[in-house]
């Protein structure tokens, strides 16, 4: 039957008059606060039916942001990704200034925000979330610009949209850098880490969010986001330029730096840090020599007539030498041994830092005109007085190269060896200057110490044993427990892979000697290392005693400085505290103004710290020499001469202008 349409058919919808409306009353969508505001301003008239319980958004709703300031590290990734540029980072200097956090927090302009939640999806820390609050009214336009905190309008609010694994926009997993396998690497000194290929380096570089948290954590403040971006853009030229702005030893630091940058990396909050160290190494490994010529020689000028002597060619000495040379000074570096590099050349084993990498960095430093005089020990071949006479300033970066002894019975045995006696021999062996027979390494050895040097000794000994006996047996004992070793975690993992046995948490008490031969090392369990005041004062449990077997003991419990080269006349004027020379923050010694110090002997052992000292001291030396030059200019004739120089050399004028 055909349906007959009549104008009365629609009237049956009248039944809805008696049903509950599905729409939400206008009065019900406001929060109490907003409703009061609207009432006061006569924007709407709300009667007594006002319901203070507003309609709640869905569980997933993208409402106003909340940001936990404790968790937030101020990386600014939210501001970068915002498609409407509604977010900017506002400086909050009252926040603590610590590594891994920046003193800024996101501020959101809700006039622009489109509530897309990309900022939430890309947040490195999960601190930025969205709440269920979606109503906010105010007659002041500026009130729509505010910094989200963990509350909204001073009240705790319910959580709305949060990111999950699916919506996460970061890549938290590091691109694997191929390593030599333990079985293969433990019988040779081949470098363990093979280094990124171009493809892998670019993949790894693509993970960086360019926040710059790493830059502030790095002792030399390297331009890390910039050079990682350059790698990602496949611009090695640009990357190299960025690297050399702040670090003249990138090839070395790309391998053995303590990488504070990675510890503080924003991605590391939830995932694996960007492999900043390997990426830096990738730049140097893939930069051909002629590229250096093109881009870095440009700023070197030779207009200032002053000479600086550097004693010691370690990281601090070379760092100072490079920057002084770039500023235009004549620089001579004095090195006692036959190769420049200090601890890099004679301490760190080749499987971590091969000679080729050191050569590349040092060759470039030499290339720009730094004169390195090897086999010249200050104090023996040339005196400090002579240096004072010949040079306008002297920088000491002689490091901690002497082994520190252990005062226990039996430690005077000739097979109890210090780390810094052993490691230089190992390096000489790698270079082919020593044969396997020249190095004494027993079939069973014990290493005392828990730092990187102890691991260097243990793993070098493993390799020598493999070469000599075809098997290895190395035991490592330290006061610290395995989870609090001062060595980097990589060392511990790789050492274990190579078969090093650990006896951590024990203190050495006696080298057990019988008939002139070492049988082993007596250990007591270590209860605590430091006393209440924080001083080094280990306590032992005598009940827990064990003797670990070994015919040779290596001691790697720290290194000490050697100040024999400094004459008494100068020593009287300087004060040495726990092996370190006291000086200003720039390394200038108070009573000997022409003398600057840096590196281990100023701040203690750290490679990148040494480079930063060198850089800082170079600036201080420059300032000092400039002040000296000004004083000498007092006589009129000199003034006139200087004017003449100024006119003939515009670069000098520019430099002087900069100084004022």
């Amino acid at each position, binding site marked *: 039957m055909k349906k007959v349409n009549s104008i009365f*058919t629609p009237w049956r919808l009248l039944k809805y008059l008696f049903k509950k409306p*599905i729409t939400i009353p206008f009065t019900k969508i406001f929060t109490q606060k907003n409703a009061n505001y609207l009432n006061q301003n006569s924007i709407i008239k709300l009667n007594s039916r006002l319901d203070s319980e507003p309609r709640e958004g*869905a569980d997933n709703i993208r409402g106003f942001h909340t940001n936990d300031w404790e968790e937030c590290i101020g990386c600014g990734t939210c501001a970068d990704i915002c498609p409407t540029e509604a977010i900017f980072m506002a400086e909050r200097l009252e926040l603590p200034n610590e590594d891994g956090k920046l003193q800024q927090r996101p501020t959101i302009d809700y006039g622009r925000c489109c509530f897309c*939640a990309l900022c939430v999806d890309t947040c490195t820390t999960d601190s930025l979330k969205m709440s269920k609050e979606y109503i906010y009214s105010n007659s002041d336009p500026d009130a729509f610009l505010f910094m989200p905190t963990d509350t909204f309008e001073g009240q705790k609010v319910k959580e*709305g*949209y949060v990111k999950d694994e699916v919506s996460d926009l970061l890549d938290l997993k590091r691109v694997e850098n191929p390593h030599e396998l333990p079985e293969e690497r433990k019988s040779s000194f081949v470098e363990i880490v093979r280094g990124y290929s171009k493809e892998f380096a670019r993949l790894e570089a693509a993970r960086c969010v360019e926040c710059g948290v790493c830059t502030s954590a790095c002792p030399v403040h390297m331009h890390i986001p910039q050079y990682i971006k350059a790698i990602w853009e496949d611009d090695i030229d640009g990357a190299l330029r960025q690297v050399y702005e702040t670090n003249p030893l990138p090839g070395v630091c790309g391998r053995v730096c303590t990488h504070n940058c990675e510890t503080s990396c924003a991605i590391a909050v939830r995932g694996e840090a960007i492999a900043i160290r390997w990426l830096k190494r990738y730049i140097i490994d893939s930069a051909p020599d002629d590229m250096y010529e093109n881009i870095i020689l440009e700023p070197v000028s030779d207009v200032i007539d002053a000479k600086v002597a550097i004693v010691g060619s370690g990281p601090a000495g070379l760092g100072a030498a490079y920057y002084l040379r770039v500023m235009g000074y004549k620089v001579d570096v004095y090195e006692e041994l036959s190769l420049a590099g200090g601890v890099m050349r004679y301490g760190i084993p080749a499987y971590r830092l091969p000679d080729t990498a050191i050569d590349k960095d040092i060759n470039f430093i030499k290339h720009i005109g730094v004169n390195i005089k090897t086999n010249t020990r200050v104090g023996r071949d040339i005196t400090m007085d002579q240096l004072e006479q010949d040079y306008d300033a002297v920088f000491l970066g002689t490091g901690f190269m002497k082994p520190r002894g252990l005062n226990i019975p039996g430690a005077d045995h000739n097979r109890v060896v210090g780390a810094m006696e052993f490691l230089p021999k190992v390096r000489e062996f790698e270079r082919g200057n020593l044969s396997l027979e020249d190095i004494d390494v027993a079939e069973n050895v014990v290493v005392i110490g828990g730092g990187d040097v102890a691991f260097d000794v243990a793993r070098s000994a493993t390799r020598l044993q493999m070469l000599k006996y075809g098997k290895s047996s190395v035991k490592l004992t330290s006061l610290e427990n395995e989870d609090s070793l001062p060595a980097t975690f990589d060392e511990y993992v790789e050492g274990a892979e190579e078969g090093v046995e650990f006896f951590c948490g024990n203190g050495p008490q006696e080298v057990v000697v019988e008939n002139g031969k070492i049988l082993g090392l007596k250990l007591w369990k270590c209860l605590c290392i430091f006393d209440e005041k924080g001083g080094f004062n280990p306590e032992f449990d005598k009940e827990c005693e064990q003797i670990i077997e070994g015919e040779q003991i290596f001691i790697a419990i720290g290194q000490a400085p050697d100040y024999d080269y400094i004459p008494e006349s100068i020593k009287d004027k300087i004060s040495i505290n726990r092996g370190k020379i006291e000086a200003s923050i720039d390394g200038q010694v108070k009573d000997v103004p022409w003398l600057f110090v840096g590196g281990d002997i100023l701040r203690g052992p750290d490679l990148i710290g040494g480079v930063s000292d060198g850089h800082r001291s170079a600036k201080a030396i420059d300032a000092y020499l400039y002040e000296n030059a000004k004083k000498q200019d007092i006589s009129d004739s000199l003034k006139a001469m200087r004017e003449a120089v100024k006119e003939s050399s515009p670069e000098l004028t520019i430099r002087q202008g900069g100084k004022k």
Partner: protein
Amino acid sequence: MRQMKLFLGPQHPGMHGNASVHIYAEGDIIKRSYLLPGMLHRGFEKGMERHTWMNNIGLIPRVCVVEPDINEMAFAMGVEMLANIEVPERAHYLRMVILELARISIHLMSYGGLGGPTGLYTLMYHAHADRNRILNIFEKITGHRVYHMYIVPGGVRKDFPVGIENDIHEFLNDLESRYTEYRDLGIENPTVLARIKDNIMLPESVVWELGVTGVGMRSAVNKPYDLRKVKPYARYSEVEFDVPVYDYSDARNRVDIKLNELVQSIGIIRQCLEKMPTGPVRAKVGNGQSMRWTVPKGQVYSCVESSRGEFGYYIVSDGGTHPYRVGVRGASYPQGLLGIEKYMPGTRIDDAPLWIDTMGVCSPEIDR
């Protein structure tokens, strides 16, 4: 007779969004007319060049306000084609549910839109109330009611929340039970019929001349040209549905097609919810963090069937982090801009809003 200039919109119950039609009328017959799309949604294509591939999801839904999901879908499909990404199976079905819900919501809105020009506001209230329920579902799934930003290159942003299927089924059952009421209220209602039957014609020749697609084309040429059938995307090839057609395109038949499509969409959603497999919902587009995702060099045209016809994105990538160029084929461009200018003259002033509503005009698509 003296010619009079009138502005239809932007403030007019029968006008869509911020567009307006400038009308020159003699008596109540339109003699000359042209569209002013509002100039609010300008520069979208250019803006897309300044946003990264991922950031663009904040911008693209705005090309059609009431049915934003088709933009997200066309853009995501284009990027996926360029980057050669395999979208997870479950994501295809999730996308279809979203797209069909969006189709229902805009058909309801458009059908309710008949209420304004015909004075039958009840229809509009009812349609909007039901559309509101879809928006509630969208809010639960995506976190937003209108700009969902849910369909992203690689899949969807998040999986469905637990229990949302019940909400969808409940809504679909309700809508189905009220379907006859809707028909009775609107196109079966003699007072409305008098306005839309044999009125506001779209002859086949005009379809070919202007390049009208979608409901307009299907109602005029009697051919089931629907991209979901002729060039299936997502998993439309896996679900059964009909494409309603007519060989006579007056306003009534066009509205009827929309209502029939609404029934088909209900069927598609039910099939999707049934067939939906479990598994991941998103594949990775690029390497690293999203602002460094790159898409290989190339160009692509990806299109989807919107409620108004073929909706396409032409995307060119130079291999970088941003699109090199994006061009949008707005489905309502032919009838909205050209049709109003050429074929609206001759209708009565009071039929002009009906003309715009039944032809399907969305001004941001024209502006973009």
